[in-house]
């Protein structure tokens, strides 16, 4: 086994561990927003390190794989948070408000914006 294959295998292992933890997070968290929190972070780092791992495994046969892997990593880093942001915003507009465990009333700063919008629509 060459050094690159070992590095690639380690990246694959790290990626799959984080993806597993992300899946567990989606299973355990109570509402959409917390699930997105767990899901986005885990899939970003997990997916990144899986793809980098594939790049390292193939780097001796064909170094072009590594360059392409890096481009895919950059695209993941840009597109993944955008999609989760779009999901979170859409859920709020559908009135699935986040679970709030504490007694503090100012915990949901986004509510007032949506209520103002609704008033404008009604008027």
């Amino acid at each position, binding site marked *: 086994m060459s050094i690159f294959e070992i590095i690639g295998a380690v990246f694959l292992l790290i990626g799959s561990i984080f993806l597993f*933890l992300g899946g*567990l*997070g989606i299973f355990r968290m109570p509402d959409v927003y917390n699930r997105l929190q767990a899901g986005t*972070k*885990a899939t970003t*780092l997990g997916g990144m390190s899986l793809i980098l791992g594939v790049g390292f495994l193939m780097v001796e046969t064909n170094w072009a794989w590594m360059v392409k892997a890096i*481009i895919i990593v950059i695209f993941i880093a*840009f597109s993944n948070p955008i999609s989760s*942001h779009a999901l979170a915003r859409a859920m709020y507009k559908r009135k699935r408000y986040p679970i709030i465990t504490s007694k503090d009333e*100012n915990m949901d700063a986004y509510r007032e914006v949506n209520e103002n919008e609704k008033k404008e629509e009604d008027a």
Partner: protein
Amino acid sequence: MREFTLNEKLERFILNWLLLMIVWIAFTTTFATEEVVIGLIVTLIISLLSVRMFTCCKISILAPKRIYYMIVYLFVFIIALIKANFDVARRVLTPSLPINPGIVKFKTRLKTDYSKMVLANSITLTPGTLSVDIIDDTFYIHWIEVKTTDPEKAYKDIAWQFEKILLKIF
């Protein structure tokens, strides 16, 4: 969207062409003449068509000082991403599920749309935060463990580490 002057258009067009050409070479991973010529033609057409849409910055973004800060930003970002993953792992594996969620807001000092997008993306990938909406210069952030609802303190806690670098880039 506002109209650009000819000079601005030219600047953005050249930057676009350069970036697309870099992506082309990275994908083909060869410097053979025919590949490069075809790449130049295709990226020229695309950047001509998209000069009003896919442009982020002026060509001065390639100044050495800004590129230095971009690399610094990259490292800060990767460290934050790894921290975020360990944070998620800790919360998920703790049997009592230690969360105290809520949505906080704060105002940013960034001006351009692209810098706000980069900041929002970074906030989503840092420990315990998820950007829900941006209205003008106000960010609404879902925080898995709210430490403060005060906008100024939230800004210091969540955004400052990225924004101080982004202010120097954009």
